[in-house]
């Protein structure tokens, strides 16, 4: 049972990690929280639904299109909900992104109705045994893809010139400007990458579960919690936070009570904030 709980936790956790990466990237570079992250996750899965299921576009193309459209949404959020408020109070962009999330959820509900849909084309397949636990092909692919995305993001940030520019902007945007980095472009790119990650996570989640217009709310909260738990602004922290929350909530549901499944994540966050408010891997002096 324990192994199955942990596997269930890793599957959920890998998706939380990807959403958390989006939060942490944007926070790292713009020092702002983009609360529409969860809704982009939902938007990505519905885009895939619109192409692959409704219009029978090839799944790979649908996937690319959906991720591309998610990135566009990220750019639009940057342009209309973040940039005009860049110099306003720190709360302003936070509230404007909450506005975007309400809009996205309402818009998709308007188009597709409130009921669940599925991205799976065929029947549900039984999983195969892995020691004393069961895991499905889809889930293995999800975990594998999540790891590729995480490693890819890490390499992008550490091995490319673009990555260096992102890290410089995150470190100190004024210095970045003085050395000739176009920080506006960098911020745009980071919003797009974060949104693309969320969209990709949403599609994967859609294969593992059902999709519905409200699916982003919980995913967004869990991702945000994971990002804060790991130390917001820290990439590896976000991944760690995602897995910790995924595993902890499944162990909590398994051994304590399933009614407290969602609560477990927030209890962990609460304890973390009490004793180590910068998160597991957060920098000592987080600028606020």
């Amino acid at each position, binding site marked *: *049972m324990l192994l*199955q*709980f942990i596997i*269930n936790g890793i*599957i*959920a956790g890998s998706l939380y990690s990807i959403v958390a990466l989006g939060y942490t990237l944007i926070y790292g570079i713009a020092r702002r929280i983009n609360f529409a992250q969860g809704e982009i996750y939902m938007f990505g899965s519905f885009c895939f639904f619109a192409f692959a299921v409704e219009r029978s576009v090839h799944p790979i193309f649908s996937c690319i299109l959906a991720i591309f459209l998610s990135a566009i949404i990220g750019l639009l959020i940057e342009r209309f909900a973040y940039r005009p408020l860049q110099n306003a109070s720190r709360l302003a962009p936070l509230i404007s992104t909450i506005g975007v999330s309400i809009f996205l959820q309402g818009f998709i509900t308007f188009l597709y109705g409130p*009921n*669940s*849909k*599925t991205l799976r084309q065929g*029947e*549900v*397949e*039984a*999983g195969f045994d892995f020691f004393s636990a*069961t895991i*499905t092909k889809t889930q293995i692919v999800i975990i594998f893809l999540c790891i590729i995305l995480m490693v890819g993001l890490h390499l992008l940030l550490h091995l490319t010139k673009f990555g260096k520019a992102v890290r410089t902007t995150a470190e100190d945007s004024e210095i970045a400007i003085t050395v000739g980095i176009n920080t506006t472009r960098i911020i745009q790119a980071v919003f797009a990458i974060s949104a693309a990650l969320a969209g990709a996570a949403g599609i994967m989640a859609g294969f593992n*579960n*059902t999709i*519905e217009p*409200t*699916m982003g*709310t*919980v995913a967004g909260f869990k991702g945000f919690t994971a990002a804060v738990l790991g130390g917001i602004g820290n990439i590896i922290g976000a991944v760690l936070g995602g897995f910790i929350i995924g595993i902890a909530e*499944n162990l909590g*549901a*398994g051994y304590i*009570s*399933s*009614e407290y*499944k*969602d609560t477990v994540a927030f209890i962990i966050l609460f304890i973390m904030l009490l004793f180590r408010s910068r998160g597991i891997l957060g920098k000592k002096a987080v600028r606020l």
Partner: protein
Amino acid sequence: MKLRYRTLNIIIILALFSILLVGCGKLSKNLKFGFIGPLTGPAAAWGIAQKNGIEIAVEELNSAGGINGRKVEIIYEDSQMDSNKAILAMKKLTGVDKVPVVFGETASAQTLAIAPVANTAKVVLLSPISSSTAITGTGVFRISPADNFQASIAAKLAVNKGYKRGAIIYTNDEWGKGLTDGFKKNFTSLGGTIVSSDGTEGSTRDFRTQLTKVRESNVDFLYIPLHPDSAVPVLQQAKELGLTVPILGTDAFSEPTIVQIAKKAAEGIVYVVAKSPSGKSFEDFSKKYHDKFSEAANYNAAAGYDAVMVITEAIKKAKSIKGEDIKSALYTIKDYSGVSGVITFDANGDVTSKEFESMVIKDGKGVSYSGIPSSQKGSAK
């Protein structure tokens, strides 16, 4: 000072007007009833269906000369599924319009909210479709059976199939808890054991850990009082995890989306639903409904229609239009054959005579299940 006089004047004028209005009510010979329900907002579809059903009933009554020679008139109040609005509407209907009978509410939370107002005003409150177990004993009459009736049938079904040990995964709300408690009580009193019952949030879509527990706990069946959007992932994930125990469903399975999404994973699921209205009276009603509103009549509309007709029956019996007299006459109604089913009230005002049937999903469709007699009456345990 000037302002005060003006305010006073306005109050006096308003007071005079309201006297006039109340006077109008007394002058008109129409028999007035109230209706409270969501006519706009998220639950509007339910409220409007009932309103349409009520309109057909009123039309029929009035074209036949009304009740005891008095035409019937319904005052419709929109609650928007908001308890505060429902209470205000109830106060208006009892205080200003002085109706003896109110039809409503729709969602159980609002029915519970307005029940005390109805009781204080000694007005009959008859809810066409609220089904929460919590309403039992609050003085509300209803056309639809309480959830625990459905649970008692499901428990009997489980026992008849020879199940001894069961697990439950439910949605932690009024409905899910009502069914779970009802099922537990009935199943254990019939000699069974419920090994575990896991409550979940309505937004839960990942049930793998709960299902893992079920898989390891060596039970004969799993009962799932979950809303359709949660039931689908349970079916899918049960299959993925290789869970082989039979799953018992609720009336949520009459929602066609479950089979559409879960496909083969829903195959063979047995569930209990209130018998869908059928027979000649329902066909006649459907035809009238379709002619008037050009859409198909559903259970909610039939329940609205029946609510008016049952009250008519009670008034004729009571030979009075006082709330208390109508109330005591309602208890004497036995096996009234309504459009939505047979109606008999117990001491709590719960309908005990509605029939249930067990269904099984076969080739993507719910068909009558022959594991137990196809229809049974619920018991009020």
